[in-house]
């Protein structure tokens, strides 16, 4: 039997991650002595670029991590090998355990092209010290009172900002990664384009309202830091931040520690909602050994290994979505936090927006939206021009 070397590109270079992957690979190799697996860590910032270069050069990896934003590109291009059949055939795989919610993004015409190994909900971290200091109710108190909505949340942020600190930070947004704003605008029921991805809905009323709300928070009440201002919630000088739960590891300890909390996203005018980020693993159809790679992927994501992956990556399998399982690997979070934020989030969450040709759309929208991030911007006009520019790309 020929030896097969599988290569999988990932964007993590973290030791613990690699140790776990290698452990899984070793286990696979024990069963299939002719197969070896190597994991290539590419820098996150240039991940897709590098991957693309490899593909263009005719050297695609066998397997690759894929970001939610580029999911559509990969899924629809025909570059990825179909997975459903192999998964179904794999013993004890229990494909049904993987929520449809989670696989939607990675499927096309009923076929699955990548396995969503990480589904990470967006939530709010709050600095209760600063909030109480500013004489505000903490989010937990508001939740308890059933008043955890955007109006109140932004009021807290504004009050803390008035007290000389910073209010609410949408982490990693930086006035560039605008898709992260989905964690807010979903509360208005807004989305950048229609479900089928063909129509621009930036200029629709929900989006206009949501963006006006954000604009107001930035430039009127100062509840959100303005463009060109870098503030780090975890340094302890901001009231709240929207980010994924994995950031809990950044919470300062010891002297710099503060009283923090993790709460779900507040309700918007359109009601309660959740947003998740996702990453999938796909197999390249043009790789040297797509069958072996698919088989390995089936092994890697079987129930047993999924439990291992869940140490770091919130799982897509319903059976693993228990506070108990998650608590083992997220010791910082309380069972309530896990329940309300993680489990609820993964179960109900909408994935960040993605689209075929997303990079180009992202860039075009980013450039157009820059006009929005000035005090006297005309929100409606800017959003209309966004649609004008991306219409042809959708």
């Amino acid at each position, binding site marked *: 039997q020929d030896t097969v070397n599988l290569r999988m590109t990932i964007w993590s270079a*973290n030791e613990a991650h690699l140790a776990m992957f290698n452990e899984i690979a070793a286990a696979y190799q024990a069963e299939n002595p002719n197969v070896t697996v190597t994991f290539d*860590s590419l820098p996150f910032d240039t991940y897709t670029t590098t991957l693309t*270069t490899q593909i263009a*050069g005719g*050297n695609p990896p066998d397997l690759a991590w894929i970001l939610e934003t580029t999911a559509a590109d990969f899924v629809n291009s025909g570059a990825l090998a179909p997975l459903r059949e192999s998964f179904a055939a794999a013993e004890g795989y229990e494909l049904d355990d993987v929520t449809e919610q989670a696989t939607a993004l990675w499927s096309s015409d009923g076929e699955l092209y990548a396995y969503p190994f990480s589904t990470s909900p967006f939530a709010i971290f709050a600095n209760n010290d600063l909030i109480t200091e500013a004489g505000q109710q903490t989010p937990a108190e508001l939740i308890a009172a059933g008043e955890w909505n955007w109006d109140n949340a932004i009021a807290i942020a504004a009050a803390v900002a008035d007290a000389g600190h910073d209010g609410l930070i949408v982490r990693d947004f930086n006035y560039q990664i605008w898709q992260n704003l989905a964690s807010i605008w979903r509360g208005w029921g807004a989305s950048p384009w229609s479900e089928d991805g063909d129509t621009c809905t930036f200029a629709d009323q929900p989006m206009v309202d949501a963006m006006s709300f954000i604009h107001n928070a930035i430039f009127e009440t100062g509840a959100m830091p303005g463009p060109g201002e870098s503030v780090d919630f975890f340094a302890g000088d901001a009231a709240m931040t929207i980010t994924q739960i994995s*950031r809990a*590891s950044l919470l300062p300890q010891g002297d710099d520690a503060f009283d923090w909390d993790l709460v779900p996203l507040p309700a918007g005018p359109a009601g309660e909602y959740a947003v998740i980020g996702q990453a999938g693993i796909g197999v390249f159809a043009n790789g040297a050994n797509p069958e072996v790679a698919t088989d390995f992927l089936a092994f890697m994501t079987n129930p047993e290994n999924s439990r291992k992956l869940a140490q770091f990556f919130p799982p897509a399998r319903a059976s693993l979505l228990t506070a108990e399982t998650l608590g083992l690997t997220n010791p910082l979070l309380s069972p309530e936090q896990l329940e309300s934020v993680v489990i609820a989030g993964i179960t109900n969450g909408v994935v960040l927006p993605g689209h075929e040709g997303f990079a180009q759309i992202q860039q075009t929208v980013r450039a157009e939206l820059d006009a929005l991030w000035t005090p006297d911007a005309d929100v409606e006009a800017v959003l209309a021009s966004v649609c004008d520019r991306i219409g042809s790309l959708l």
Partner: protein
Amino acid sequence: MKTELAPRTKVLVYGLMCVLLIPFVFPTWWMVTSSVKPISQIFAFPPDIIPRSFDFTTYGRVFELQPFAQQYWNSAYIAALVTIGTMLFSSMAGYAFARIRFPGANLLFMVVLLGLLIPSEVTIVPLFQMFLSWGMINTHWPLVLVPIFGAPSVFATFVMRQFFIALPVELEEAARVDGLGRFKIFWTIALPLARPALAAVAIFTFLHSWNLYLEPIVFLSSPDRFTLPQALTQFTDAYGGALWNVQLAAASMTALPVLIVFIIAQKQFVEGLAHTGLKG
């Protein structure tokens, strides 16, 4: 060499230089000091010029998180190979263009100069395809071969040519009479005398290879083959967030040896360029 300045002018010059230094030195200072700060303090505002606490464990972490010693070695030996190769082949070509009459010399020189004009982003895809077909992806070959023979060496060839043009021709004639052939003349007379120019070429080439960013990312995929600039991006926590202090510790370690080499070599280096006159 200039004549001495008047004391008043001296003070003025020192003052001006110190002010100008701020934007040059502050970022490096920040890099070094931040490497021993806890992450939460790195982006604190206003920044601490002197860190409040020193945590040198980041330097140890650099080696734990990545095969940093290996990566250091990779960068070092690649840069050394590139430097030596460039010094050899560029001085050969520079010598020929400066000293040997052969038909088509001018045209060929123009062709070589073309290499100076092409950004590496432009040719990276075809180069990737070529190296793939030679089975050299995820090896260090592309990082060695392209700089030695491709665009980056052209500047070196140019500098060497200018230097050799200025070298007294009698020395070579003496060597011919003394019984040497072309190659021996080049090797025993021209090259030893080109030491200053070679020093300049060496520093430029070494720096270029040492700082190469795009190419390693494209050509290399396993961490134990990474080079330093690429390795710098790899210090992340369990969730992909940058470990700034560790990354900056690694960055400091990357910059320091080169600075030391520069301090040692700068006199040779400046003189070397002075000798070439670097006339276009």
